[in-house]
C-alpha cells in the first residue's frame, strides 16, 4: 500500500510526438538554403585578394566566366573559345537584363586576356562586371 501511494500520477515523459516535425522543419530549412554546386570546374584558379570588396546578393543574375591558370576560359560546364564569349553573353543579356558577369580569374594571368574578355563583354552589352576576389585577412 505505501509503495503504491508514492507513485506520482502525472506523466514524466516529454512528448516526443512533435519531435519529427521540428526536425523536419530544420531539415527543410537546410534543404532550401543548400545550393549544390551546379558547375564542375574544369580550370584551376586562385582568386586574388582585395580589401574593398562587396557582396553579390543577387545570385540569380550572376553569370560566371572562369579563367584558369592555363588561360582556358570556362563558361558553365564547357571550355569556350574567346570568340564565343560575345555570342553567349549577348544571349544571356537578353535572358537576364540585370546580368552581372563575375570574372573568376586566376591571379597569375596576364591582363591581356582580361582586356580581351572585357572587350567581348562590351560588344555583347554585358557591362556589369564583378572581379571576384577573396577578402584579405585582417591584419592584426
Amino acid at each position, binding site marked *: 500500500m505505501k509503495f503504491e501511494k508514492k507513485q506520482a500520477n502525472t506523466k514524466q515523459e516529454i512528448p*516526443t*510526438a512533435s*519531435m*519529427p516535425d521540428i*526536425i*523536419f522543419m*530544420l*531539415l527543410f530549412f*537546410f*534543404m532550401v*538554403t*543548400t*545550393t*549544390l554546386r551546379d558547375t564542375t570546374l574544369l580550370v584551376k584558379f586562385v582568386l*586574388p*585578394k*582585395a*580589401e*574593398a*570588396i*562587396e*557582396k*553579390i*546578393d543577387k*545570385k540569380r543574375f*550572376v553569370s560566371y566566366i572562369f579563367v584558369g591558370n592555363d588561360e582556358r576560359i570556362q563558361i558553365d560546364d564547357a571550355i569556350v573559345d574567346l570568340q564565343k564569349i560575345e555570342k553567349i553573353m549577348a544571349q544571356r543579356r537578353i535572358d537576364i537584363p540585370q546580368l*552581372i558577369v*563575375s*570574372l573568376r*580569374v*586566376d*591571379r*597569375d*594571368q*596576364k*591582363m*591581356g586576356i*582580361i*582586356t*580581351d574578355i*572585357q*572587350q567581348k*563583354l*562590351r*560588344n555583347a*552589352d554585358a*557591362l*556589369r*562586371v*564583378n*572581379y*571576384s*576576389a*577573396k*577578402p584579405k585577412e585582417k591584419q592584426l
Partner: protein
Amino acid sequence: MALMKKRKRDTPEIPSASMADIAFLLLIFFMVTTTIDVDTGIGLVLPPPVDPSATPPPIKQRNVLKILVNSAGQVLVNDEESSISMIRELVKKHTTNNGADERFAESTEKALLSVKVDRETSYDIFMKVYDEINMGYLDLRRAYASQTYGTPYERLSDAQKKDADEKYRKKISFAEPEQSSK
C-alpha cells in the same frame, strides 16, 4: 469473441519512434553539405563600346589623375614614379583637392581617374591597383558618412548611401586597349 478479434487487427501503426532519427540523419547530411558562401568581389561597370570615329570629350588635363602600371608592377602617377600603396592617398588627394594644388583636380565633381595597364601586367597586380583606388573612394565615402550623417558608411540607409556614393562617384576611365600586334 469474433468481434473482439477483428478489432485487434484493426489498428496497424507504423512505428514512429524512429522517425526523428531518420529526420536527424537527413538534417545532418544537409548541414554538412551546406556551404553558405557569398560571392565577393569588386564591381565595375564597363563603358559601352565606343565609336572609333567619335572624338573624345574635352577634359582638362589637370582633372585627370593618370595611373600607369607596367608589367613589373611599377606605377607612374601623373608622370611621377609612385607605388601601388601610394595610389590610395593620391586618389583621395586628387578627389578632395578642390583646386588647391595645381597638379590635382579642380573640384570633386570634375575629378577623373585614368588607369592604363600593360597587357603583360598580371591580374594580381591589377587587382591590387584597382583595390587601392576603390579603398580611396571608400575612405572618402566613409568620412563623408560620419561627417554628414554621424553613422558609419556601412550602416547608412539606402538613400543616404546613394548620396554618399554620388558625392564621391567613381569616375574611372580604363584606357582603350591598343590593338595587340599578334
